[in-house]
């Protein structure tokens, strides 16, 4: 890929910011969907039980920590791959 010049960088940066917004919203809604699927299974009432609430909290926190760890390993593997390509 050709390098981008300063003006192109700037335009690309705007695009990246837009995408980060979308990515964040996607992460958020995936999280809701996953934790709802795993934690909410009682439809005899329209209020969350305290057990469901606890499950949702743990599910969300754990997912974010999981996502962070995957991110760290992902960057390491990416760097490793780049080094191997350069050789």
């Amino acid at each position, binding site marked *: 890929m050709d390098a981008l010049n300063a003006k192109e960088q700037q335009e690309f940066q705007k695009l990246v*910011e837009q995408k980060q917004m979308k990515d964040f919203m996607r992460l958020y809604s995936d999280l*809701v969907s996953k934790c709802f699927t795993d934690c909410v299974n009682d*439809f005899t009432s329209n209020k*969350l039980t305290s057990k469901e609430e606890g499950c949702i909290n743990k599910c969300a926190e754990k997912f974010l920590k999981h996502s962070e760890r995957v991110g760290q390993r992902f960057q390491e593997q990416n760097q490793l791959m780049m080094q191997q390509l350069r050789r």
Partner: protein
Amino acid sequence: MSFLGLGGSPNVSSQAKIQAAEAELDMVTGMFNQLVDICHKKCIGTSYNASDLDKNESLCVDRCVAKYFDTNLKVGDSMQKVGQNGAFGVNR
């Protein structure tokens, strides 16, 4: 989102406003689509003996939507708690 847009030409600013409105629309639509999908899985049987929702299914759908909104709020709280010290992996 667009730093250049702040106080910039009215044209750029319009674009930014429309993009924000679009993002909001996408979020609401996305949430609705997810809700349709997930409450179908939770509440609607796959034997298809009838084309109407029966009473149990209807009640289940109503509660499913209500509980999904509550779950949405709870997840938001958790994300604020954890998310601010930077837990979003690749984009930085």
